[in-house]
């Protein structure tokens, strides 16, 4: 028995040694890399992003330029869109997280309140670089990264939701293009005229056949979010002091009703059709005449018809509002190279501001500079820049995902998918939303 045990042990050791021979190359190459780094004294800064193949390639070009210009850092990207949120959360909870990472506004608000991202308030104040000048940023874009007067990250994009229209379909029907006088009524009017059945009749016609629609004026499936319309009517879904959800105010209820009516109207395809044919695909395939999308969606460059980009229609009382979708970057609070990471962070943020539409900086929101950076979107830029003035973000707080879960599953999902009546649901859901806000306040 003893002999057998010895045999077994020696076998295991033998196999380990054999495998060690195979793995030697990795060992030497990684130690060589370390020596190279030491020679040039560049710190490796790991960046985690959700970029897919194409975006990652463009990002790599930017990183190569930054790395060649710096003798302090070497940014290495780790881009993988699959399950990004869960992965980054687990990585940051452990000790093997990246130094820099892209983060959505919602996650940023969560992380900022839990000390996951490095507090950069002091560093920003002491830096001379223009990108570190906080007053140059739109307040909307900074708010997810702030927690109790400290800043934990910087946004690299704030894209407002704008109105994309199919100019060819507008021309065919004789509807005039949107202008600054467009409000909800004018918008609905245009949508009706642009909804056409198989006999060529539009939705404002008495003999309109809503069972056989071939072209719809607009499309809605939960996007654009109802908050845009609530804001345009002067209401809000979370109060400014985070104490309650005023979804039962007359302004908010009217906006919900507008939204629900629009979802159920003949001007918008049924949810079934939208799911089957694809939400934005229907716009690209010219089955839908108007589409509200993010400015960075760049639909005007991706379609083969004449596509115009305009500001959203304003509310019934003339209020202009749109959603500003904010994405940004943070530094891992556990990073071992905070100073170098911060410099890399600033340079990269600046570089991305030149890359994406729209940068969240007021100094860059002028038409000439943007036209130089993005000549392919020259016609769209004015509307986008105008939208930045009144773009808002959701009121993120520590337990926002809990609030959003109830808002989506108990209120919005039934309105969109089950023809629910907002005036019946709102009184039921408001106490649940208020309860979450109260819990978070404790």
């Amino acid at each position, binding site marked *: *028995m003893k002999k057998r045990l010895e045999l077994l042990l020696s076998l295991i050791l033998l196999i380990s040694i054999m495998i060690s021979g195979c793995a030697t190359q990795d060992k030497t190459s990684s130690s060589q890399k370390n020596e190279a780094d030491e020679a040039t004294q560049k710190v490796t800064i790991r960046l985690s992003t959700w970029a897919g193949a194409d975006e990652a390639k463009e990002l790599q070009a930017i990183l190569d330029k930054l790395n060649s210009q710096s003798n302090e850092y070497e940014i290495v990207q780790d881009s993988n869109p699959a399950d990004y949120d869960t992965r980054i959360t687990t990585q940051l909870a452990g000790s093997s997280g990246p130094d820099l990472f892209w983060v959505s506004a919602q996650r940023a608000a969560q992380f900022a309140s839990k000390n996951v991202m490095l507090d950069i308030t002091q560093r920003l104040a002491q830096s001379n670089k223009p990108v570190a000048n906080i007053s140059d940023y739109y307040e909307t874009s900074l708010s997810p990264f702030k927690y109790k007067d400290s800043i934990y990250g910087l946004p690299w994009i704030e894209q407002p939701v704008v109105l994309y229209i199919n100019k060819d379909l507008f021309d065919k029907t004789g509807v005039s293009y949107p202008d600054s006088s467009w409000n909800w009524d004018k918008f609905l009017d245009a949508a009706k005229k642009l909804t056409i059945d198989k006999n060529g009749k539009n939705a404002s016609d008495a003999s309109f056949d809503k069972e056989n629609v071939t072209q719809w004026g607009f499309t809605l499936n939960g996007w654009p979010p109802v908050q845009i319309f609530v804001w345009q009517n002067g209401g809000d879904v979370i109060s400014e002091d985070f104490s309650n959800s005023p979804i039962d105010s007359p302004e908010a209820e009217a906006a919900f009703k507008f939204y629900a009516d629009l979802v159920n109207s003949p001007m918008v395809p049924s949810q*079934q059709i939208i799911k*089957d044919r694809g939400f934005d695909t229907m716009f690209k395939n010219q089955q839908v005449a108007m589409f509200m999308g993010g400015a960075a969606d760049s639909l005007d460059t991706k379609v083969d018809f004449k596509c115009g980009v305009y500001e959203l229609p304003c509310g019934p009382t003339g209020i202009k509002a749109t959603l500003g979708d904010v994405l940004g970057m943070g530094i891992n609070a556990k990073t071992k190279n905070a100073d170098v990471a911060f410099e890399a962070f600033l340079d990269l943020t600046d570089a991305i501001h030149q890359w994406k539409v729209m940068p969240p900086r007021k100094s860059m929101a002028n038409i000439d500079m943007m036209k130089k950076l993005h000549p392919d979107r020259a016609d769209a830029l004015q509307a986008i820049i105008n939208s930045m003035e009144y773009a808002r973000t959701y009121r993120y707080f520590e337990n926002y995902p809990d609030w959003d*879960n109830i808002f989506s*599953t108990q209120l919005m999902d039934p309105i969109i*998918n089950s023809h629910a009546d907002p005036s019946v649901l709102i009184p039921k859901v408001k106490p649940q939303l208020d309860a979450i806000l109260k819990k978070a306040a404790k």
Partner: protein
Amino acid sequence: MERFIGPFERWLITPVVLIAIAIMLYKLLRKIGWRQRQATGLALISPWLVGFIIFTAFPLIYSFYLSFTDYSLFGSPKWIGLSNYIYLFVNDIEFWPSIRLTLLYAAFSVPIGVIGSLLMALLLNRQIKGIGIYRTIYYLPAVIPDAAVALLWRWLFNSESGLLNYILAPLLDIIGVGKPDWFGDPRFVLPAFIIMSVWGIFGTNTVVFLAGLQGVPRSLYEVAEIDGASVWAKFWHITVPQISPVILLQVIMGMIGALQIFTVAMFVRPTSAAGKFMNQLVYERGFTQLHMGEASAVAWVLFAIIFALTLLIFRSTPAWVYYEGEVKR
């Protein structure tokens, strides 16, 4: 400057440490008087034990502890006692519908799975030409990963261009009903998932039943035939009792698996008006909302449900499960 411990060195440490533990365990056990055979046995399974303790037992106990805390993965857990459980059972609007949905799903999909795979196994339990090929083909579903299958089902269930509605269309026209929006209409979500669970009929379940069927002695059938038993009588009075331990295994494993449905639900993303399965709640509470304590509590409630149901099934076994050599009382 940190000492650079490369990945290979870290890899080598593991087997060395495990072997060291095994040897030390052996010496320790011998010292306290264990016989050589037993000491060797325990020492040799110690690597597995170490893995089990680190990756299964410890997380199990830790998650039970976490269910009584408020923990967001960042910072340390804060003890809050039964608050999570109270919140779930009293204040959480999604919790009870989730239990209901999960139990309903198991209640339908397990019998369908067991009966279906038994029938399939009966069909494959013949000595006809090419039966090997058929068995291989019918085992293929077990090889395909869950995520790919879920995407395929999402495509099949597409209400306008999916295959399922295409086949059903003539029938629906006769009844005068429109094409169901399988994942968009809350009424159709549970039926859709139960149809998808049909997938579970093939693959491993059928193979297990096949093995069980082939263990039934031929002589029993021959005797029954002499006595003039019908096909149904042979099936009900010989086959079923003989393979009842296998049926028990399939029912229990099927139920445990059905109650933990996750991958398919996450990929297919049905309308949330239909409710969410319990494991979906665990994922959402844990990773999206960063309430790890609450997520652990949901997971432990699920465990309690599975445990209770499994006990119930075991309690019922004297009535219908016959082990070899037993006689009906």
